[in-house]
């Protein structure tokens, strides 16, 4: 019954027309995750539009305006499962103006699927998507060289693209990159091995997705437990129960261990770790648990429980890589809310050190404002100290979002440097 499957979250990014929707359609179709009534609906819509083929992109483009314009506006989530794994696809549009959607999809992904049209090779968008995967520290990348059927399944074409990509990606921080030559349209090397490319002895895309090693994607070294909520039943059966509810952000916690609370610096010992009344021997990311301590100390939402010999740094001046996501530009000295883990504090944009041209990776200095979809290195100062790790060390305790004080919109994503 596949009850103990692992969960892999991946994003797909590609330019217009490089066959991303077709590839997703192929993965869903070949893994039997498309249902008859969905397929019938898509066939009917395709016929209504006068197409003589079934447009699988209609499966993913859910909103009326997307269907009308034939473009993907927002991140769409798709689900499929094989006997080995359950998959969540964050399908993000490829247009330049939608960097924010790519960043959104990438923020929770274990893996990025990057599509390259075999006829065109690396294009500007390939650079952009790869840079975002690297910026968001997606642990694994699979580069799919698509439309191999249109280049006569040429090994030379594939090798050249692999070589070009390796040269380009050496400037980025992605540790695990795999390459696969495919044709999403025909199905070569997607789920089934291609007979058209005997020279390729690597795995199919599906096999890569099913076997990529994701157990170490969470930080299991540096123990971090952001307190989300304090459970106090104050009932007859539990008059004194005081449990700290939250989701483990890193490392491993066990009953009996010494802990330190940040930012107060108080120390105590773990009494129990439990969930729903069931006691646990240990807890690790990303488990949601309830923790009780030996001593009654003052702990509230927003605090972080760590270890006395390994805890996050606590500061008010924070360096970020920032992606601005709102239509209204932001200027220096703008005040914003900063949300980090379960804590929200006020902050101000103190300095823009440089912004990045994400196609060429050139730094642009002397900048006093940022517009939508721009990425920059900035300094913020917060009203109260935050206890954080670098994003490189921990994607959970190293990330923030910025919120506009007037509109309450989420306006930026930040990765702590």
């Amino acid at each position, binding site marked *: 019954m596949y009850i103990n499957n692992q969960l892999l979250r991946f994003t797909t990014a590609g330019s217009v027309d490089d066959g991303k929707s077709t590839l997703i359609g192929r993965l869903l179709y070949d893994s039997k995750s498309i249902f*008859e009534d969905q397929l019938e609906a898509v066939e009917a819509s395709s016929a209504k539009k006068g197409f003589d083929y079934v447009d699988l992109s209609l499966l993913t483009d859910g909103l*009326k305006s997307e269907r009308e314009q034939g473009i993907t506006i927002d991140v769409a989530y798709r689900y499929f499962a094989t006997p080995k794994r359950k998959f969540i696809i964050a399908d993000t549009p490829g247009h330049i103006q939608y960097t924010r959607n790519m960043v959104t999809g990438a923020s929770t992904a274990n893996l990025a699927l990057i599509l390259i049209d075999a006829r065109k090779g690396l294009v500007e968008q390939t650079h952009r998507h790869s840079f975002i995967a690297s910026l968001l520290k997606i642990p694994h990348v699979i580069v799919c060289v698509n439309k191999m059927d249109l280049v006569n399944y040429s090994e030379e074409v594939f090798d050249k693209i692999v070589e070009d990509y390796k040269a380009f990606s050496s400037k980025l921080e992605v540790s695990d990159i795999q390459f696969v030559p495919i044709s999403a349209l025909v199905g070569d090397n997607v789920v089934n091995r291609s007979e058209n490319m005997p020279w390729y002895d690597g795995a199919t895309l599906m096999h890569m997705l099913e076997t990529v090693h994701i157990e170490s994607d969470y930080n299991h070294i540096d123990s971090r437990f952001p307190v989300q909520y304090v*459970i106090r039943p104050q009932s007859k059966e539990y008059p004194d129960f005081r449990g700290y509810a939250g989701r483990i952000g890193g490392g491993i916690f066990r009953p009996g261990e010494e802990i330190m609370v940040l930012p107060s610096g108080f120390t105590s010992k773990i009494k129990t770790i439990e969930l*729903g*009344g069931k006691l646990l021997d240990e807890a690790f990311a990303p488990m949601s648990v309830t923790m009780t301590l030996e001593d009654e100390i003052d702990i509230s939402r927003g605090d972080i429980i760590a270890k006395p010999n390994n805890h996050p740094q606590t500061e008010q001046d924070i360096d970020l890589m920032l992606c601005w996501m709102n239509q209204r530009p932001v200027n220096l000295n703008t005040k914003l809310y900063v949300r980090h883990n379960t804590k929200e504090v006020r902050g101000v944009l103190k300095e823009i050190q440089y912004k990045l041209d994400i196609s060429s990776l050139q730094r642009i200095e002397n900048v006093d404002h940022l517009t939508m979809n721009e990425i920059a290195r900035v300094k913020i100062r917060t009203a109260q100290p935050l206890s954080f790790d670098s994003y490189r060390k921990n994607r959970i305790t190293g990330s923030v979002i910025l919120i506009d004080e007037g509109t*309450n919109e989420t306006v930026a994503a930040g990765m702590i440097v």
Partner: protein
Amino acid sequence: MTKLNVAENLNMSQYYLSHLKELESEAIFVIREVVAQFEKPALLFSGGKDSIVLAYLSRKAFYPARIPFPLVHIDTGHNFPETMEYRDWLVNELGVKLIVGSVQESIDKGRVKEETGWNASRNALQTVTLLDTIEKYKFDAAMGGARRDEEKARAKERFFSHRDEFGQWDPKNQRPELWNLFNGRKHMGEHFRVFPISNWTEMDVWQYIYTEQIPIPKLYFSHEREVIVRDNAILSTSPWLKLKPGETPTRKIVRFRTCGDMPITGAVESTADTLEKIIEEVAASRKTERGTRADDKRSETAMEDRKKSGYF
């Protein structure tokens, strides 16, 4: 132990969660986040398996304290009796408060007008009752069991879905949602819909019910029932289903994949009378569960249109 030793001693492969445990952990995180960020949250309870799972996840999230928000049932008056029986049992079992918003009351007050015709349903009318109930009790976050795999418009939903003061959803102007940082800030009069099991599929829900041994209404299991077949749908007879000339009820062995209103929820012929058999059946099924729902079939964008106006 030094840091290095910990790393060396770890059998890394042992430190990962099964997909069900990871989905459970994510949902519990979201539910706790709702209670921490909002003043008056509520759980929208339909009696269906998704909202049942949500209620059980809520119990886990706050145990040993009681669930710190009420269940809200928008009662169309067209429920399966089995759903009502289960609802009352569950409320007692979880020790949680129940609030009922009545569509009949909205009709009596003239807030909505009952549909007429053969396929008349109170499905669309629920939206008004729901929004009235949210306003009456000043709920600022309403959690629901909707999943992104159910329907294409829902595939674009956020976990924290912002609604304006008219309860409307603006799909083109949604807040970006990154990592596990959920932004529940709002202005007076606005509220949020929150979907903790967004990332679950129908199969995940069944597997979870199975592994956690969660009791569910009898409707989901195979049973004999008086039905009619209309437009390829098997509909249960009920006081609210008007028979067309020539329609004669027959008895069939059926079960339900979803629990909506009696007149619009189609049954499937099935002999699955245990959770194991249901899971097998779901795995082999080539039709989506909402394929049995007449409310989604009204147009290609039926769900998006209803959601924009404030539906679940």
